[in-house]
């Protein structure tokens, strides 16, 4: 029967009356290919989006939470589509992948939502306040200072959780939500009124008894007067301008509860209520800690910058006023200003200081005219230098210049009241470097920036040796940008690849690790001499001879941008997106359950999709939809077109010719075969003939193969050809799309001859292919595989051989 069908094909008369044979490709095959294309589209979208996120984070962009959220959402959708496509292609072979995807997604959602506010201590002594307990940045920093042994007034902090408890128990939360709901977003007055109502209601409520008790207990060891300071959770980045949160100085013990409530109430400004209208009311954003500290009877007070905020650099600026520090900033009075450089006061200016603030006997602050005897300099030289020393200690500990509030009592003892990172302004483009350095030997230019930065080191060309041998600090030079080179990322100073794009797996990993890399550097492996010291400039895509010190200075960091909440959230989210753990597809660990990032999922999905697609020929296609390819060569070949592989005029032809071929990989293959020509199986010598006959007689697989037809499953950009040339079987698969997703692979299954002859042939092919930069893997397996794992990579030419 099969013979009859074959005859029909050979005659090309398949449109017999009564029983038309379909020329459409088998639906199952077509569906699989469609899923593959969908997966590729998702793969490339994911890598592009990940690249974009890394660039936005590291290259000085301003973005907000809306951007981070929507980018994560789009990315998540593509990953979901990719996993679904692989499931459809493989008939659900990797159930673990969807589970892994859900785990990663859940982590990202959690990072975006922020840490939920969990019940915790309501009040803690400053020494015990640490990050992550919801006491707010100011109180947490004070806790650090106390633990460092620095002079901080005795005190304690109230957690933001205490506010939550207060608002929940007193019904304030419901009241606030109702006020927000009732106010009109287009009516500023109604927002103001709502804010006023909320503030009044906050002041009117009693604190929860346990909070009241804790406050009383912690106030007990403190002096009779305290300062009550807000310590917002989002202090610097978010609501700092949405309302100046209150600070109350010189508060008598019995009024602390009231001041505490006033600090909380100060949050509900019209701006905040406007924000809540659209974003809702959430304690993570609208709750604050409060620091309560013993009042320093200040004779003078002020602010200390451990660097010059206009220029940065080695200078401390101290300003000082008489009495309390509340007039030190804000421009009401002209403070004293001291500039300290190299442990010496280099400039001193005694300010006018027309007015001063003092602690009032009944509580609160007195605003007075400064008496003439106090109008001189507030600080002695030694006190200025002591302050400078304290500042230097803080800066060294936190690794950043600091902005510190201080006060000094009548005995000259200095106290630190608050510290936060100093914002340093810089002039734009102070350290401009031209795209190409003058007086430098350019070894390579116009490469693509795969990972920004610059680094120098000796060139190491990747050849026969594996990436595990790359020495520490080398500039690794490779022909291709293969994902497994990521194994060397921890050791190399920089990377240069002749091919590749910024959206490859490798580039993503390099950016993640901050390793500078230039891709698409043509001829790099010839132009860069092994061992030569070079500088890779991955700002402009050049490689220079020698060490170019001017490039190696890190550019002025955008500390300001990095303090924004959106930046911090993106940094956390990217930890679940960009790292790649599944580097080597041959490794035992290359499994769905080991995918812990979107990058892992993408890599796994793509790798397995290629393997799944390869299987379409191994399963033996149906004869449906196949047409005979008629040519001058003695090849019996049938073509199944999944779309775009044949010219439109061949649509209804049961027999097609090479001129109908539109599949780019197949057309390329055919050009090669035609050029080399093939006259059919070569006559074999007697020994060879006997070996074939003997093997064919004993090996049923070989005999089966001899009876198989040759199929080419093609599409515009795809070729999957199972080909038998005489006794030699090979499968050629190729996808020709974007550079990152293109590949060609050859699987040679040995032939019909006896083992030693087959081995020799394999060794020969192996050498030829290696020279052509194919990745070659030899496998010895008992019988030709139907489902053996395939090894292919992005933009990799690979070759597999099974010695039967």
């Amino acid at each position: 029967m099969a013979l009859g069908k074959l005859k029909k094909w050979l005659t090309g008369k398949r449109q017999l009356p009564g029983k038309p044979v379909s020329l459409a490709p088998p639906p199952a095959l077509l569906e699989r290919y469609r899923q593959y294309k969908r997966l590729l589209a998702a793969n490339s979208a994911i890598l592009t989006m990940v690249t974009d996120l890394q660039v936005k984070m590291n290259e000085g962009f301003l973005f907000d939470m809306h951007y981070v959220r929507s980018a994560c959402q789009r990315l998540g959708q593509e990953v979901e589509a990719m996993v679904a496509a692989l499931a459809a292609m493989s008939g659900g072979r990797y159930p673990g992948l969807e589970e892994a995807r859900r785990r990663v997604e859940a982590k990202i959602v959690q990072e975006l939502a922020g840490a939920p506010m969990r019940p915790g201590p309501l009040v803690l002594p400053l020494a015990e306040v640490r990050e992550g307990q919801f006491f707010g940045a100011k109180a947490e920093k004070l806790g650090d200072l106390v633990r460092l042994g620095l002079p901080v007034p005795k005190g304690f902090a109230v957690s933001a959780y205490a506010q939550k408890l207060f608002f929940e128990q007193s019904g304030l939360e419901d009241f606030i939500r109702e006020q927000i709901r009732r106010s009109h977003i287009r009516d500023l007055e109604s927002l103001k009124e709502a804010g006023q109502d909320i503030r009044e209601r906050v002041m009117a409520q009693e604190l929860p008894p346990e909070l009241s008790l804790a406050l009383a207990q912690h106030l007990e060891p403190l002096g009779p007067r305290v300062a009550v300071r807000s310590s917002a959770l989002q202090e610097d980045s978010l609501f700092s301008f949405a309302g100046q949160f209150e600070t109350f100085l010189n508060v008598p013990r019995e009024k602390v509860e009231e001041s505490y409530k006033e600090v909380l109430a100060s949050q509900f400004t019209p701006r905040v209520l406007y924000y809540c209208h659209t974003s809702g009311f959430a304690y993570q954003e609208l709750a604050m800690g409060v620091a309560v500290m013993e009042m320093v009877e200040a004779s003078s007070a002020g602010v200390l910058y451990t660097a010059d905020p206009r220029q940065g650099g080695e200078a401390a600026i101290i300003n000082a006023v008489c009495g309390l520090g509340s007039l030190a900033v804000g421009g009401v009075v002209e403070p004293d200003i001291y500039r300290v450089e190299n442990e010496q006061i280099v400039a001193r200016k005694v300010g006018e200081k027309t007015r001063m603030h003092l602690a009032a006997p009944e509580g609160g602050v007195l605003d007075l005219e400064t008496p003439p005897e106090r109008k001189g300099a507030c600080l002695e030289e030694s006190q200025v230098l002591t302050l400078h020393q304290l500042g230097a200690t803080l800066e060294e500990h936190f690794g950043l210049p600091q902005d510190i509030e201080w006060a000094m009592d009548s005995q000259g003892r200095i106290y630190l009241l608050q510290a936060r990172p100093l914002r340093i302004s810089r002039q734009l483009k102070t350290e401009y470097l031209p795209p190409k350095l003058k007086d430098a030997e350019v070894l390579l230019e116009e490469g693509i920036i795969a990972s920004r930065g610059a680094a120098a080191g000796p060139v190491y060309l990747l050849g026969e040796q594996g990436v595990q041998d790359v020495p520490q600090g080398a500039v690794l030079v490779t022909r291709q940008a293969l994902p497994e080179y990521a194994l060397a990322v921890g050791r190399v100073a920089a990377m240069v690849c002749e091919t590749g794009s910024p959206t490859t797996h490798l580039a993503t990993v390099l950016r993640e690790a901050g390793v500078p890399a230039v891709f698409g550097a043509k001829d790099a492996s010839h132009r860069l001499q092994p061992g030569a010291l070079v500088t890779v400039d991955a700002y402009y895509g050049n490689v220079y001879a020698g060490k170019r010190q001017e490039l190696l200075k890190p550019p002025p960091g955008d500390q300001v941008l990095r303090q924004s909440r959106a930046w911090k959230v993106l940094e956390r989210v990217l930890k679940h997106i960009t790292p790649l753990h599944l580097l080597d597809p041959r490794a035992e660990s290359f499994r769905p359950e080991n995918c812990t990032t979107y990058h892992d999922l993408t890599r796994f999905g793509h790798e397995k999709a290629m393997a799944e697609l390869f299987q379409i020929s191994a399963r033996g296609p149906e004869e449906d939809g196949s047409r005979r390819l008629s040519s001058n060569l003695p090849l019996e070949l049938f073509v199944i077109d999944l779309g775009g592989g044949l010219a439109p005029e061949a649509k209804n032809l049961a027999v097609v010719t090479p001129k109908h071929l539109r599949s780019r990989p197949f057309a390329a293959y055919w050009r090669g075969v035609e050029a080399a020509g093939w006259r059919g199986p070569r006559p074999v010598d007697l020994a060879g003939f006997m070996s074939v006959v003997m093997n064919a007689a004993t090996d049923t697989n070989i005999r089966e193969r001899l009876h198989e037809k040759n199929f080419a499953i093609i599409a515009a950009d795809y070729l999957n050809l199972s080909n038998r040339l005489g006794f030699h079987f090979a499968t050629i698969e190729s996808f020709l799309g974007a550079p990152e997703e293109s590949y060609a692979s050859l699987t040679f299954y040995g032939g019909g001859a006896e083992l030693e002859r087959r081995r020799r042939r394999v060794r020969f092919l192996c050498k030829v292919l290696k020279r052509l930069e194919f990745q070659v893997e030899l496998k010895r397996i008992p019988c030709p595989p139907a489902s053996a794992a395939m090894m292919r990579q992005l933009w990799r030419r690979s070759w597999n051989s099974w010695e039967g």
Partner: protein
Amino acid sequence: MGRILAVDDELDMLALLKMIIEGYSDHQVTATNNPLEAAEFLGKDQFDLILTDLKMPGMDGMELLAAARKMDEDALVIVITAYGSLESAEEAMAQGAFDFITKPFRKEQILLAIDKAMRWREMVRQNKEMKKRLEGEKS
């Protein structure tokens, strides 16, 4: 040194704008997340430049642009648009916005756009002054 009013309902963006502009230039920024409040500020104060997001609840950037232009026909407005909403940026330009910038943007982009606007403002001012002087001489 100029005075800038920045309006964006996204608080992170607003905080960043203020920090970046004040950190890298001599301009002073008044920032609000509420466009209604921004309109109120415009009535009370003089600003050299307005930076506003386009899509905001309550009152969108286009309305604010119209309000600003109504109060002062020379009002300079740079609109900030989300990625992929070029049409609204074009519409804003047609309604008299001086420039637009698409989120996310690099800090250099916004600083250069501000610089350009400020120089334009100075030129317009000088131009007016000269015209006035010319007319004075004529009569």
